[in-house]
């Protein structure tokens, strides 16, 4: 497996090449280099997966964990050091496939989508940087390597969101994304420090001797803090606010970073540390589960009232990641047969979601490319103009809604089964969220492809082949991914687990989804003249729950709260007073010292008058004073 190093080196190389020499290249050459590298990385990843899963299992039925490379990068103490290396185990190999495939599709797609944009070469350079960082993150051999690449993906995300750097909205969004995730990463960092101190190592397997000497009690704290970092990257409530704004970036970037790969880093982190969560911090895991469940509902409700196509998808991503997190959180043991199913389900959903959500975003990009707007009100009846996009979008919508034979059904069903296994409350809760998901997705679908037909300035047309090929590829993947015997490859304890569909759960979720789709069809599939906006179902629900509707359209005012904290508290109440104190009190004190010296000098200067008589008086007076003093003593 020595060749795996090229999976990291090649994108790093193409980043450097494009960053340094990209300006002198033709756009097509730069894009070609990026895409070729991405293609090779995909081939290498597939080879890795083939060789890895093809190799015979160990005696206990698990796949061997391979570490083809590991070297100390930065030594701290005897036991603590940052290593850089490559770790191959079932989840990291699975992630390699996901990242390289979606990345390749996005590279190809961008040829068409970004054609003629200024900064095309820069765009591909950043894509390479992101791909390298994300791959480095998943193959990390220790938590600190993961953190380092974690920061790098954060920065590549920052650079790509702010790709259109002259747009104020893009600048603000990139800044917000970076700072919010940075804030969360502070938790991650402190978690790592706590973990390192008590577990005696930064590797994923704690040093048991060190741990037993008093560290066990601190491990839940460390793992909880690490999850704060994960929640930031994965946009869990209340750290989700950056993700909807991040849609200011180019749409393929949203597909790659903010739908398929980077935002699931938090899920991956929990999965990576899963044995520790189960073994030492089941309470924290449970809290993580409820965070995920709440977030999934919260985001799904907001998605129902958004009017911007990318925002709907963004909230849908938050909601779906909530499913994955919940699924991990409902695990109660390492055995997939008993309470550990959620781990497999979560990874499965991560895999299928990456495919269909990337497809949705790329499809949305294709639509935006055609109608030059993000607003759903500017779209309608597009099925006539964009047949390919229409079909693949429908496939993706059916998949996310959980309709059988499409991949989303299989993974979501496993999640729901795991939730029912945890508690019926959680199970029904998540089934309800799944129904809302089906509703808002089909609200989107019908409004775009059916429904009323707005007056287009020029007739929309299907996108070029560079854009439709990735769509078709991902659609095929979405159709087939569900039949992969996923449990054979990945399960909570590494042994093979045979997936079986729980009939009652499946029936319930399908029924709920169909009802929601029916409702959406009823409301939005109508053709004909433009209707008053009261036709939008959430709008008609305004009468029933005015406060809820208003709050949801303002995204429950979370942004306003952040605004208040940053501007009113940090800037106005901390920074400004500190800056004032520094200039006027601290510095004022030293200036006052200077003034004192000056004034004292001014005051005693007249004594040096040059008049002999005056000196004589001083002289005599002084002599007299000293004499008196001496006599007294």
């Amino acid at each position, binding site marked *: 497996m020595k060749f795996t190093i090229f999976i990291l080196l090649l994108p790093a190389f193409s980043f450097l090449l494009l960053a340094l020499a990209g300006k002198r290249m033709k756009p097509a050459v730069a894009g070609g280099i990026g895409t070729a590298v991405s293609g090779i990385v995909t081939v290498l990843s597939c080879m890795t997966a083939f060789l890895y899963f093809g190799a015979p299992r160990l005696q206990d039925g698990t796949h061997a964990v391979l570490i083809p490379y590991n070297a*100390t*990068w*930065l*030594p*701290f*103490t005897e036991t*603590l050091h*940052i290593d850089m290396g490559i770790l191959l185990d079932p989840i990291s190999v699975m992630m390699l496939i996901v990242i390289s495939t979606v990345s390749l599709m996005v590279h190809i797609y961008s040829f068409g989508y970004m054609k003629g944009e200024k900064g095309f070469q820069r765009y591909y350079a950043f894509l390479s940087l992101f791909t390298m960082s994300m791959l480095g993150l998943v193959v990390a051999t220790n938590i*600190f390597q993961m953190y*380092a*690449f974690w*920061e*790098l993906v954060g*920065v590549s995300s*920052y650079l790509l969101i*702010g790709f259109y*750097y*002259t747009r*104020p909205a893009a*600048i*603000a969004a*990139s*800044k917000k994304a*970076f*700072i919010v995730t*940075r*804030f969360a990463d*502070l938790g991650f*960092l*402190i978690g790592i*420090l*706590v973990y*390192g*101190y008590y577990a005696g190592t930064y590797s994923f397997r704690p040093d048991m001797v060190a741990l037993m000497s008093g560290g066990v009690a601190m491990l839940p704290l460390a793992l909880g803090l690490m999850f704060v970092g994960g929640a930031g990257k994965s946009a869990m409530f209340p750290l989700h606010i950056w993700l909807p704004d991040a849609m200011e970036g180019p749409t393929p970037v949203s597909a790659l970073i903010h739908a398929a790969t980077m935002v699931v880093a938090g899920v991956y982190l929990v999965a990576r540390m899963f044995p520790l969560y189960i073994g030492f911090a089941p309470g924290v895991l449970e809290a993580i589960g409820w965070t995920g469940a709440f977030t999934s509902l919260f985001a799904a409700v907001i998605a129902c009232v958004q009017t911007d196509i990318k925002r709907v998808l963004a909230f849908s991503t938050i909601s779906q990641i909530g499913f994955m997190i919940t699924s991990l959180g409902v695990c109660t043991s390492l055995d997939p047969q008993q309470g550990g199913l959620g781990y497999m389900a979560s990874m499965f959903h991560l895999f299928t979601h990456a495919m269909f959500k990337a497809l949705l975003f790329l499809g949305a990009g294709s639509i935006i490319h055609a109608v030059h707007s993000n607003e759903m009100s500017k779209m309608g009846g597009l099925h006539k103009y964009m047949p390919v996009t229409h079909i693949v979008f429908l496939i993706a919508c059916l998949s996310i809604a959980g309709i059988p034979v499409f991949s989303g059904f299989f993974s979501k069903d496993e999640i729901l089964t795991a939730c029912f296994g945890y508690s019926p409350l959680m199970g029904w809760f998540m089934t309800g969220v799944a129904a809302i998901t089906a509703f808002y997705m089909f609200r989107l679908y019908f409004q775009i492809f059916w429904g009323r037909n707005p007056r287009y300035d020029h007739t929309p047309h299907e996108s070029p082949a560079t854009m439709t090929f990735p769509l078709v590829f991902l659609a095929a993947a979405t159709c087939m991914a569900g039949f992969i015997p996923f449990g054979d490859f990945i399960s909570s304890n590494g042994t093979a687990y045979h997936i079986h569909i729980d009939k009652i759960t499946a029936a319930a979720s399908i029924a709920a989804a169909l009802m929601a789709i029916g409702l959406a069809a009823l409301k939005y599939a109508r053709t004909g003249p433009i209707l008053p906006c009261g036709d939008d179902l959430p709008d008609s629900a305004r009468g029933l729950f005015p406060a809820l509707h208003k709050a949801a359209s303002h995204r429950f005012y979370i942004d306003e709260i952040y605004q208040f904290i*940053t501007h009113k508290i*940090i*800037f106005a109440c*901390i*920074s*400004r007073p*500190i*800056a004032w104190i*520094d200039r006027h009190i*601290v*510095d004022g*004190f*030293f*200036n006052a010292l*200077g003034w004192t010296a000056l004034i004292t000098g001014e005051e005693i200067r007249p004594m040096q008058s040059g008049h002999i008589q005056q000196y004589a008086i001083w002289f005599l007076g002084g002599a007299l004073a000293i004499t008196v003093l001496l006599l007294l003593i």
Partner: protein
Amino acid sequence: MNFLSLYVLIPLLMLGALWACRNTRQIRGVMAAGSSALLILSIALVFLYIAGRRAGNTDSMLFTADTVWYAPLNIHYSTGVDGISVAMLLLSSVIVFTGTFASWKMSYQTKEYFLWYSLLSMGVFGFFISTDLFAMFMFYEIALIPMYLLIGIWGSGRKEYSAMKLTLMLMGGSAFLLSGILGIYFGSGATTMNILEIAGLHNIPFDQQCIWFPVTFIGFGVLGALFPFHTWSPDGHASAPTAVSMLHAGVLMKLGGYGCFRIAMYLMPEAAGQLSWIFLILTGISVIYGAFSACVQTDLKYINAYSSVSHCGLVLFALLMMNATAATGAVLQMLSHGLMTALFFALIGMIYGRTHTRDIRELGGLMKIMPFLSVCYVIAGLANLGLPGLSGFVAEMTIFTGSFQHADPFHRTLTIIAAASIVITAVYILRLVGKILYGDPVNPQHLKLTDATWEERLSVICLITAVAGLGLAPWWISRMIGESVLPVISQMIP
């Protein structure tokens, strides 16, 4: 006398040659040759030093030499280097080299400017190679005085005020320092001013240490921007010409951290252990206070000056944690901060030279006008906020890991507060970058400005290479420093 004395001799030769120069071309030639020679010397020194260590030399200082200078007071001119001073010498020569090119276009009183500049660098180099208390102090003073003239004459804005304030405050610091040094000398009852020998005696009585440690620490701390003695820094940096800001923030402020470690803590370890909590609180304040202040500044140089207060605070903070990892981190942070601040000041100088304003409200959209400088500015910003792969990450992570080895709540709390500064750093850096680089150009007059010239590119690329080199391959320098802090640390842990 050995080859380390070249560090003093080359600047002296440069002074002589500059004296004889008749025109700008000659001056530039002398400066380019001299600063390149110093840079090559430093790179050679790194290799020689590592080779020396590989060969199994375990002395605490290598290449030691000793010449009696003034026998009645036991003042010697003694030189020697360990991993820390090698790192600092490398840093200084990189910055002297890049600073030369950053002030290539200096047109007012060029000769005098470079004369003082060379004298300043001589002081800096002399300080780092010396192992004699008095010689160190003398070189320290040599480095301070030219600063006054360089700011007062070639500066901008309220330059006289700033130059006066900076010099007076640093002079106040050196008054403390002198008494501290004398206290050490007489307290140890030594017949030598050599640091290594005094440390070997390790016999300064504890009650005396408790007087002289704070005095010495504050003396150096003034230069290291210790709260509340940091207020010279914003004004001083803001008024100084580009290369002087670079040298000052990049190297001179490191003299403070280096001195605190090498003199105050090495020679008076017991008092350091006893009193570290006071200074830990002060440095903790520096870290967070500097970062918050930087958030609301509107002058580019002020932002950077406060950012320096925050980052240099982290240096002293880490030193006071008194373990090998944190101390290694402190030295790494000195290196990293030196390089990236120099980069920042170089870029600010170049932008100011074109736009004639440093007010961020009057700047905008520079990415479109001067892409090279803007991209470099973003890289500098990312280094500042600790992006992995650039130097800041390496230093900060070493510091935090080291500081976290103390399990008591006091150290833990301070470590977490200090770590929180990385978020605030991100706030002010991104605010700045978003404001001045992105967006559309705000001032139509800026549209006709040009991007960097070759000498500016050379200077900036050189610094970025150093920042990235340190950030990508930190292990060798971390090891080199790590083994050199051990003698000092073992002094503190009896």
